[in-house]
C-alpha cells in the first residue's frame, strides 16, 4: 500500500535524456512515414498466429487495432470493462472526424491539417507524429465508408462536410450527431468479424488491474473478472493499452462513469513514463451541475456556438429571468472581447472566459455557475424550423435533462472536463518506455500537444488503431523470438497476481466510514478548484499539501462492502479511485512545474496584458515525461525537447 511521504511532494529532474528517443524519422516531412514503414521488419503471414497480442480497451483505437491485427493473422485477446466492446466511450463523440480530403476545394491539404493541429496544440506536439496523423486521415474515411459507416451525404450521393471548431475549411465528416457511435460500430463490427473467424477473443467485463513485465519487457496483464471476481493471468508477446483518458480524476466530467486511469497508471508504476499529465481539455458547452447528486456532466456539441450567442447580465447578482434583462444590460462577453471570432473562439478561451464572468458573480442559474447560450436571435433570423433541423436532437436532450425549452428560454451552459491530452509517453511507433508496451488513442500523449482541436480525437484513435499499430507491432514482434510466449506461471506473473490480491484484500479490510464516491467527489472538487481551468502556484501547492492527506484518509477510512469473489461495483470503483488519488498528485506536480501557460494549461502567472495564455518557448518547449519515483510523491522529470522545423511557433491570437 502506498502511503504519503511526510515531506510532501518533491520532484527531481533526471540528467539522463536517453530514455526518450522518439525515433521520429528525419528527411522530408511528407516521406517520413512511408520511409519508416519501409525500414520496418515484417512477420511472415504464416508465422503471425504464433504471436500473442493483448489489447486492453475496445474503443476506436483498441477495436480498430484488434480487428486489423486479427485479420493480419495475429492471435489477439481484447479486454474491456463494459459488457460489450461496442459500449466503449468513443461511442459518445458527437461532432465528427477530420480528414484532409479537400472535397470542398476550399484550400485544405494534408499540410494544412498538420499545420492547424500543431498550432491548435499550442506547439507542444511532435511534428512527425502530427504529419502522419494528417496523412492517414484520408485513408480513414475511405476505410469507414467501405465498412458501411452511414456518413451524412448530399443529394448527389457524395459525402457531406462541415466546418467544425472554428476551422477555416470544411474538413469534418459526420453521421448526424452520432459520429463516434457510427465509427465505433464500424470498428466493432470489424472486430466481431474476427471473433467469428477465430483470430480474436473478446473478454468483456474484465478489468485490467496489473501489467506484468519480465526483465523490463511487457509480457502480460492480470485481470479481474467483474462477474465473479476471478483474478486471471494473461501472457503475450506484446501488450497494447487503448484505455482512454483520465478525465474522471475530476469526478464530474463528460466521460462515462467507468472511464479510469488504472491500466495506464499500473503501467506507469511499472516503468512507463507519463507525459504532460496536466494537459486537460475543458469543453465550454456542457449542461451545468444541478445539485449534490450530480454523477456526470453532459456535453452538447460545440456546433451550438455557430448560432447561439453567449451572454451574462452586466451587473453582478442580477437574478432577473433572462427575458426581463434588457439588451443594454447584457454582456455578450466573447463578442465584446474577441470581435473577429466572437462566440467561436477555441474551447479553452471560451471556457476560461465563462469561468471569469462567474467568478465576478455574474453567473446564471440556481448555482451561479452557468452562462446563457441564447438562440433567440438565430430563431428570429432563420426561423425555428431551421434551428430545429440543425440542433433538434441537442435541444431535445437539453430539455430532457433540465426541463427547460431552449426554443423559448436561453440554454444555460458551463465548462466541463472533456478530454485529456496527456497520457503515457510513446515514441513514433507508439511504444512506451517499457519495451513491448504500446499505447494508443487518448491513453497516449502523442498528437494533440496542449490542446486538442474539435473532430480530431476520432481521427487519432482510428489512425493509431487502423494504420500505425498494424505496422509498428509487426516490426516489434519480428525482433521477438517466435512461439516463445512466456508462461503465465512464471515468477513475474505470480508476483503480479499476489500484488493484486493483496490490494483487493487491503481495500476490503479497511472497513471505514466513508463511501468510495465520497472520496472521489472530494478529490474531484480539489482538482477542479486547483488544477482545473486556471491554475496558480498557491493553489497547486495547496492541492499538493492536501492530496497525500486525502489519500491517507482513503486508505484509513474507506468502506468497501462485500467480498472480492462476487460482482462488486464498489470494489471496482475503489481500485480506480485509489489510482486517481495518486495520478491527481502527478497532475498537480506537472502543472506546478510548467509555469508557462499553453493550450488547456492556463497558469495565471503567465498571461498577456489582455489576459491571454502566454507560452514560454525558451524554457518549456518540451514534453514533460514523468518517471514514477517509487512512492507516489517523488516523480522524476525527463524532458523530450520539441523542435519545430516547419511550423514556426507564434502566439495564438483570436482578437
Amino acid at each position, binding site marked *: 500500500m502506498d502511503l504519503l511521504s511526510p515531506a510532501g511532494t518533491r520532484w527531481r529532474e533526471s540528467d539522463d535524456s536517453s530514455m526518450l528517443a522518439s525515433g521520429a524519422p528525419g528527411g522530408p516531412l511528407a516521406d517520413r512515414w512511408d520511409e519508416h514503414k519501409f525500414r520496418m521488419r515484417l512477420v511472415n503471414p504464416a508465422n503471425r498466429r504464433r504471436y500473442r497480442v493483448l489489447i486492453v480497451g475496445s474503443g476506436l483505437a483498441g477495436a480498430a487495432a484488434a480487428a486489423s491485427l486479427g485479420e493480419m493473422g495475429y492471435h489477439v485477446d481484447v479486454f474491456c470493462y463494459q459488457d*460489450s466492446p461496442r459500449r466503449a466511450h468513443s461511442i459518445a463523440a458527437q461532432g465528427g472526424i477530420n480528414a484532409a*480530403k479537400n472535397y470542398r476545394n476550399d484550400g485544405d491539404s494534408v499540410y494544412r491539417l498538420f499545420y492547424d493541429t500543431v498550432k491548435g496544440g499550442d506547439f507542444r506536439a511532435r511534428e512527425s507524429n502530427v504529419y502522419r496523423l494528417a496523412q492517414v486521415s484520408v485513408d480513414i474515411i475511405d476505410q469507414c465508408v467501405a465498412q458501411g459507416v452511414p456518413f451524412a*451525404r448530399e443529394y448527389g450521393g457524395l459525402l457531406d462536410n462541415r466546418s467544425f471548431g472554428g476551422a477555416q475549411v470544411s474538413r469534418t465528416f459526420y453521421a448526424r450527431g452520432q459520429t463516434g457511435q457510427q465509427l465505433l460500430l464500424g470498428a466493432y463490427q470489424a472486430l466481431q*468479424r474476427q471473433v*467469428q473467424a477465430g483470430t480474436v477473443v473478446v473478454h468483456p467485463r474484465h478489468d485490467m488491474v496489473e501489467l506484468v513485465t519480465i526483465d523490463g519487457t511487457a509480457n502480460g496483464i492480470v485481470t479481474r473478472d467483474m462477474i465473479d471476481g476471478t483474478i486471471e493471468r494473461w501472457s503475450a508477446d506484446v501488450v497494447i493499452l487503448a484505455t482512454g483518458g483520465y478525465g474522471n480524476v475530476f469526478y464530474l466530467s463528460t466521460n462515462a*462513469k467507468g472511464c479510469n486511469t488504472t491500466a495506464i497508471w499500473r503501467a506507469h508504476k511499472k516503468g512507463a513514463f507519463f507525459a504532460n499529465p496536466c494537459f486537460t481539455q475543458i469543453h465550454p458547452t456542457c449542461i451545468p451541475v444541478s445539485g449534490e447528486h450530480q454523477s*456526470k456532466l453532459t456535453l452538447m456539441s460545440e456546433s451550438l456556438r455557430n448560432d447561439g450567442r453567449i451572454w451574462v447580465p452586466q451587473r453582478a447578482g442580477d437574478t432577473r*429571468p433572462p427575458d426581463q434583462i434588457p439588451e443594454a444590460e447584457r454582456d455578450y462577453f466573447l463578442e465584446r472581447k474577441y470581435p473577429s471570432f466572437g462566440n467561436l473562439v477555441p474551447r479553452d478561451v471560451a471556457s476560461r472566459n465563462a469561468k471569469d464572468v462567474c467568478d465576478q458573480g455574474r453567473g446564471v442559474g440556481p448555482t451561479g455557475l452557468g452562462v446563457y447560450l441564447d438562440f433567440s436571435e438565430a430563431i428570429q433570423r432563420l426561423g425555428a424550423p431551421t434551428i430545429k433541423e440543425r440542433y433538434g436532437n441537442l435541444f431535445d436532450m437539453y430539455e430532457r435533462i433540465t426541463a427547460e425549452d431552449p426554443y423559448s428560454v436561453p440554454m444555460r451552459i458551463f465548462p466541463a472536463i472533456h478530454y485529456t491530452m496527456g497520457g503515457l509517453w510513446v515514441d513514433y511507433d507508439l511504444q512506451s518506455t517499457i519495451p513491448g508496451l504500446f499505447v494508443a488513442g487518448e491513453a497516449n500523449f502523442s498528437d494533440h500537444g496542449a490542446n486538442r482541436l474539435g473532430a480530431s480525437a476520432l481521427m487519432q484513435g482510428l489512425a493509431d488503431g487502423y494504420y500505425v499499430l498494424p505496422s509498428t507491432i509487426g516490426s516489434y514482434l519480428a525482433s521477438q523470438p517466435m512461439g516463445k510466449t512466456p508462461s503465465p506461471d512464471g515468477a513475474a506473473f505470480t508476483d503480479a497476481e499476489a500484488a493484486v490480491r493483496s490490494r483487493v484484500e487491503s481495500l476490503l479490510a479497511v472497513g471505514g466510514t466513508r463511501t468510495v464516491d465520497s472520496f472521489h467527489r472530494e478529490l474531484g472538487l480539489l482538482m477542479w478548484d486547483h488544477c482545473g481551468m486556471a491554475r496558480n502556484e498557491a493553489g497547486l501547492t495547496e492541492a499538493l499539501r492536501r492530496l497525500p492527506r486525502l489519500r491517507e484518509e482513503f486508505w484509513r477510512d474507506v*468502506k468497501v462492502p462485500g467480498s472480492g469473489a462476487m460482482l462488486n461495483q464498489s470494489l471496482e470503483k475503489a481500485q480506480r479511485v485509489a489510482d486517481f488519488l495518486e495520478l491527481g498528485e502527478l497532475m498537480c506536480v506537472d502543472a506546478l512545474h510548467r509555469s508557462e501557460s499553453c493550450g488547456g494549461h492556463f497558469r495565471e502567472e503567465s498571461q498577456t496584458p489582455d489576459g491571454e495564455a502566454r507560452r514560454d518557448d525558451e524554457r518549456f518547449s518540451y514534453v514533460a515525461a514523468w518517471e514514477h519515483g517509487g512512492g507516489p510523491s517523488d516523480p522524476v522529470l525527463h524532458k523530450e525537447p520539441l523542435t519545430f522545423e516547419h511550423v514556426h511557433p507564434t502566439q495564438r491570437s483570436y482578437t
Partner: protein
Amino acid sequence: MSGADAPSRPGMRLTLKVWRQADRQAAGRLVTYEAPDVSPDMSFLEMLDVVNEDLILRGDDPIAFDHDCREGICGSCALMVNGYAHGPRRATTVCQLHMREYADGDTIYVEPWRAASFPVLKDLVVDRGALDRIVAAGGFISVPTGSPPDGNATPVPKDDAERAMDAAACIGCGACVAACPNASASLFTGSKLTHLASLPQGQPERHRRALAMVDQMDAEGFGSCTNIGECSAACPKEIPMDVIAQMNADVRRASLRSR
C-alpha cells in the same frame, strides 16, 4: 420557467421495490427500500446512486446495475421501471429519465430485463452477450484494413444514407427484447440488417448476412416476432418496425436463392 431564480423544489419520498438476486444461480426477490429525499432534478440512476450510498453506509450490499455513459448512447443501462423498459418516457434511456416524472409518495418497481437469452448475473445486471454473437455471425461488411476505394467512389443516394442511419442508430441495449412478450430480438437484428442492406457497400453479402444473423438469433433462444410492436414503442432510438419487415423479406429472398 427561468433558470436564474428557480427555487429548489422539495425532495420527494419514494418507495422502491427492487429485484435483488445474489448471482446467476440464486433465486431473486423484490426488496423494498425507502428513498426519503429525492430531488426532481436527479436522473433515475442518480436516485439509485443515493439509495446505494445509504446501503453501503448501513453495511448492506448496494444494488448492482449496468450503466456507463449516462447520456443515452452506450446502451449499458437496462432497467424495467414499473413494467416498462427504460421507464415511461418515450425515446429515452433510463439514464436520461429524470425523477420529475414521479410524484411524492410514488412506489416504483425496478427489475432487470426479463428474457431467457439474457440471464441475470446479479440484481439488475444481465448478460447480453447473445447480441454480440448475432453481430459476429454476419453483422458486418467484410473489408480488410488497407486501401479501399476513395470514399466518394460510390455515390449513395441521400435517402438511402438516411435510411441506413435511421437503422444504425440502435444502441444495442436490448429494450426491444425486454419489451417483447415473445422476447424476440427481431428489432435489434433487423436494424443491423437494414442499415447494411440500405447501402451499396452492403449488397455483396446481403443474403448471406440475413441468413447467418437470423440463424444465430434463433440459436440464442430469442422468440419469434408476432408483430406486436412493443419493441419499437420501447426503443429509446425509435427504430421503426419496418426493419423487421426488411429482415423477413431478405431472409425469404435468401432462402429462395439458396434452394
